[in-house]
């Protein structure tokens, strides 16, 4: 009888530990844009196109805790102060969230690069999607990149 209770206790304990482990993992349900190949590893999630356009999704701590409107201003100012050229900004929506999308450009060597950033605030976590590549190559893939951003499930 005692052994039976011990077996039950052990199995409950194992289930509990498994649930804890699963809930503790911060998985990033991000998908690669169409035509991109994904690297192994989830945070950051990384994918690349055959012509070198990069796509990366990662999380950061929302610290100090702030809403999207606060981070929008801070991000734009920081990138502008760093010397990136502003191209456009817009709202971006996934199934569950509304985020902020900022398109910048910068010279890299003798090429001009596009640097696209999408930011989502989910409680104490910031979800950051970044994409970059040589401007003309990037332009061709921009639609599939934005579609991938819209499918991020934070």
């Amino acid at each position, binding site marked *: 009888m005692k052994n039976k209770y011990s077996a039950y206790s052990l199995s409950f304990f194992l289930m509990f530990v498994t649930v804890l482990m699963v809930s503790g993992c911060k998985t990033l349900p991000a998908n690669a844009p169409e035509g991109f190949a994904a690297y192994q590893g989830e945070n*950051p999630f990384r994918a690349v196109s055959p012509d070198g356009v990069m796509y990366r999704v990662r999380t950061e701590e929302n610290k100090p805790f702030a809403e999207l409107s606060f981070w929008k201003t*801070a991000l734009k100012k920081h*990138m502008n102060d*760093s010397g990136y*050229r502003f191209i456009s900004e817009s709202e971006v929506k996934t199934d569950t969230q509304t985020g902020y999308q900022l398109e910048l450009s910068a*010279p890299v060597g003798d090429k001009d690069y596009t640097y696209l950033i999408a930011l989502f605030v989910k409680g104490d976590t910031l979800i950051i999607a970044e994409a970059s590549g040589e401007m003309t190559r990037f*332009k061709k893939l921009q639609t599939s990149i934005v579609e991938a951003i819209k499918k991020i499930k934070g």
Partner: protein
Amino acid sequence: MTMNQHIIISKRFTIKIMAGILFCLFTVLPEAHTFAGPALFEQSTLTISLSDPDSAADDLIAKAQSLDGYFTYLADQSVTFRIPSSKSAGFLAYCETKGIVLEKQFETTGFDEQLDQKRTSLKAKQEILDRYLAVLKNAKKKTIVSVERAVQEVTSDIETLKGSITYMEHELAFAKIIVQFQFKDRTAPVYSGTSSFPWLNTMNLQTMIEDFNDEK
């Protein structure tokens, strides 16, 4: 007054009105049009990103020539055009279809005052020259040299003024359009890492490129 007389008078009246309209159309209005608006020199700089700058430059040069314009400078990453001012907007719109527009700058310089000043000076100098030439005709041997020297100086001034006016008129007639195929300022963004918000310090294109390069 008979009915026929009425018809003849009204016909004459109509002819006078039409003549008046035609006079306005061919004399007064064109002059009004000529002097309407300020005399502005236009300069536009367009930065576009495209995959094949060489063929785009050739294409833009052909387009400029078809619009009675020409190019004044050609380099790997930039072409400078002079396009008739009335056609410059159309040319700029065509340039924008060639690639992704990164930057557009437009500036104008008013030439009204300078041009008026130079034209007035030219008129005055020409009058002075005429007077000198009249004096020269009746000049005595003693004074002929000094009058000739004065004529020479005024002629030189007139030529300089004529040159400036021609230059300004050309500047007004042809807009300057500079097309760059990449940012002229090649300074890369600076990574300072000094933001008070730690995650913002991770937002850097160079770091992202390195992150992907490490994976190779």
